[in-house]
């Protein structure tokens, strides 16, 4: 541990937690964690005897094994795929790399149930463990790509040069320095992947792969057994907590990689040389599999046509509704994430970190459970007011995808040097103005990324929407579901296509964000010298 790191920690430890920021962060967390309270209340109602019978049967063990093995394989594959594609895009002379930066992000905006639907349309017999691995990996690897690309972009390439000059070989430099710099981002992305896999339903249902979450839906859909479903959900939350704990330990050690971005030179792209066509082919294959297959299947179904016994619906209305919800949820989640992100970076002590981490758990809770928890809350606390209204719908989306916003905002806050705020204050700028004049412009791009991520996920949400949407308001996802579940595939397809097109917009924003990151920081005229190289390398 370097001296600078020690000084910072000491410094942070002495500053008292700011009252306003802390209370807002705690308040936000309480709202975000409401669904977990609901789970516990329901599980308590079941009583221990039934809980025991439900949880300790052979199926539970099978489900946990199915879920955990899938989680491990998908996360590992996403780590490899996300990290390597991020490195190729950010640090090499790969042709068309700016185009790839956008194309590899878009799959995040394609609903997982559309991806499995696409594969199923091409290979009708597809199913089981490896099909689930394939579909999930291709749907969520951008969650690793995005933070790793950001981290590679802002990391100081000088370290690699130093390592090389000290005699480290290319491979070892790559492994210890480059990957080391991105380690926190890789683990952060993997945690998101893990949590999303825990809560995924639609894709596995189509592929006939049984996980804890599909069983939870079964308990709801066939068993009328809400308490049992909640009990099973608690296992999910427990698994999620274990995941987060494992990441906490890793992040704790890797925290020193802070960079005064302005002084870092631009990384010189690695030459791919003769490997270039191979890498290009690999990236193209990734885009074909992750983007081409679902889009191809969608287009094929539209072209193929066919009658539906269902009445026609308005694509325009569904698009407008989806867009409105996604924008609103993106704004709400991003604004709510700011206090927690600021607090957890600037006052990173154990209690604050626990608060921030606990918010992540909501990502592991299936959408249907979250929706019913709000049904419960509005019934018991608000006499049914606000139920099935737009404000509650937006709030629910914002809570479901809140962790994604926190991750993006947190990363941006962590990269913006606290020294700038201190300088501003020492020059007589008042505290509140510092936020608007210094902090927000510095992390503006991070806010945009948070908004884009929440937007993407909201635009494709289905199960919570079905419970909570205002009556007579349809979204792209609910309308897709209405057609798809009736076997009217060619009528369902246009809705999926619009979802993909809508996803391309934030995908583009995210791509551009990473493109502009360094120039922006430099443009802001960051006057700080780069910290000594020793403080940069993860200890």
């Amino acid at each position, binding site marked *: 541990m370097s001296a600078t790191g020690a000084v910072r920690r000491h410094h942070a430890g002495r500053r008292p937690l700011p009252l306003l920021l802390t209370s807002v962060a705690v308040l936000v967390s309480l709202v975000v964690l409401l669904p977990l309270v609901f789970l516990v209340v329901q599980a308590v109602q079941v009583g221990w005897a039934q809980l025991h019978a439900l949880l300790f049967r*052979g*199926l539970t063990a*099978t489900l946990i094994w199915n879920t955990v093995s899938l989680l491990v394989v998908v996360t590992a594959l996403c780590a490899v795929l996300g990290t390597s594609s991020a490195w190729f895009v950010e640090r090499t002379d790969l042709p068309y790399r700016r185009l790839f930066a956008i194309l590899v992000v878009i799959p995040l905006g394609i609903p997982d149930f559309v991806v499995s639907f696409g594969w199923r349309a091409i290979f*009708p*017999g597809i*199913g*089981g463990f490896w099909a689930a691995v394939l579909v999930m990996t291709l749907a969520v690897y951008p969650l690793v790509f995005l933070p790793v690309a950001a981290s590679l972009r802002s990391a100081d390439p000088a370290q690699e040069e130093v390592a090389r000059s000290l005699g480290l070989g290319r491979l070892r430099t790559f492994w210890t320095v480059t990957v080391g710099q991105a380690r926190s981002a890789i683990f952060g992305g993997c945690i998101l992947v893990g949590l999303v896999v825990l809560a995924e339903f639609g894709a596995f*249902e*189509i592929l*006939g792969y049984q996980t804890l979450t599909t*069983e939870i839906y*079964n*308990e*709801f*859909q*066939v*068993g*009328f*057994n*809400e308490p049992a479903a909640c009990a099973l959900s608690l296992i999910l939350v427990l698994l999620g907590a274990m995941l987060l704990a494992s990441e906490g330990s890793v992040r704790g050690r890797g925290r020193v990689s802070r960079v005064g971005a302005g002084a870092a030179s631009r990384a010189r792209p690695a030459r791919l040389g003769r490997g270039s066509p191979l890498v290009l082919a690999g990236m193209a294959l990734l885009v074909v599999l992750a983007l081409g297959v679902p889009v191809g299947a969608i287009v094929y179904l539209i072209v193929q046509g*066919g*009658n*539906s*016994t*269902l*009445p026609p619906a308005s694509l325009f209305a569904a698009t407008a509704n989806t*867009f*409105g*919800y996604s*924008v*609103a949820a993106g*704004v709400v989640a991003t604004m709510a994430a700011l206090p927690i992100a600021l607090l957890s970076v600037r006052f990173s002590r154990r209690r604050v970190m626990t608060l921030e981490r606990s918010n992540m758990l909501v990502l592991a809770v299936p959408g*249907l459970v979250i929706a*019913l928890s709000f*049904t*419960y809350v*509005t*019934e*018991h606390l608000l*006499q*049914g007011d606000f*139920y*099935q*209204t*737009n*404000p509650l719908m*937006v709030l629910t989306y914002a809570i479901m995808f809140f962790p994604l916003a926190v991750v993006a905002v947190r990363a941006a806050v962590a990269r913006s040097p606290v020294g700038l705020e201190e300088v501003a204050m020492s020059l007589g700028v008042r505290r509140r103005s510092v936020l608007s004049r210094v902090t927000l412009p510095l992390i*503006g791009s991070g806010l945009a990324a948070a908004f884009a991520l929440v937007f993407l996920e909201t635009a494709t949400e289905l199960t919570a929407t*079905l*419970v909570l949407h*205002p*009556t*007579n*308001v349809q979204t792209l996802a609910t309308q897709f579901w*209405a057609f798809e*579940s*009736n*076997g*009217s595939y060619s009528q369902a397809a246009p809705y999926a296509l619009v979802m993909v097109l809508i996803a391309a917009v934030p995908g583009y924003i995210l791509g551009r964000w990473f493109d502009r990151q360094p120039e922006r920081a430099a443009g802001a005229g960051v006057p700080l010298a780069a910290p000594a190289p020793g403080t940069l390398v993860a200890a």
Partner: protein
Amino acid sequence: MRRALTGCVAASLGAVLLTGCAQGSGGGGESLTVYSGQHVQTTESLVTAFEKQTGISVNLRSDDEDVLADQIVTEGSHSPADVYYTENSPPLQYLASKGLLAGVDSSTLANTPSRFNSPDGKWVGVSARVSVMIYNTSLLKADQLPSSAMDLAEPQWKGKVAIAGSETDFQPIVTSIARTHGEAEALRWLEAVKANAGGHDYPDNETVTSQVNSGQVALGIINQYYWYRERAQVGESAMHSAIAYFAPRDVGYVVDVSGAGILKSSTHQATAQRFLAFLTSQQGQRILAHSDSFEYPIASGVTTAQPETRFDQLQPNDITVAELGTGAEAIRLLQEAQLL
């Protein structure tokens, strides 16, 4: 640029909130909220006709019938639902057992045969379907088909039979088998059929139908109307399958009843009664008979427009809606067989 973006965001946010308010204050006319687990094909034309005739606007919320049942229970006394309309009787029996359903007018109950209504008048039957076999005509000949659902547990059907074990339509067959042969035998049957189905245990009946039709698997158990819908969607020329009935009174030959009930918590009791009366009226039943729903109307004197076996000529097992109950026994057996 940034200002434009902020303006855009603010405008969208405002629009969303505004529509929320507009929704809340709604128009002056009477309206009814129907939670529907029924297929939209069935509900759409009925609702449109009812609205036209009465001037009452109907808000339709569609989801899986059991999710809706859970939702109604969680919503409690402030449920926005006035009417609950389902594909099968067990979810209605479930809400009735929780004391959440008000009774149905006796004049409405008299519209349909009493054996298809709630035993204590808590809900009314609206339409019916029957469980059948669907088989791929190039993989199987009609004379190779089993006569009883029990035969599907035989090893000769390994890899050849498709089910949708987690679908509500499958439960009545399980209940029926347990009623005739006992729980132990029903569980053995489930385990054997599950093993025979292997990878052909699909999430829904639509998938079973299309997989059999496309030749992925030889035989499946469905309700008859899925086959007619598949034909309406893909066209006569793309049909490579046919439906067949089990032997008369077989345990697998079960009539499933779709019905509707009124929530006790509803503040529109009279309007809701009108809606149920309309569903079971001659007019409502005729609409059903000519819709793309392909369900059987059950009021006397109305027959389906499809050239299929007439409802009164079917020879199903004599299991009653009361015996089908909430499906709790079937669910427990399905869970034991790890199909749920």
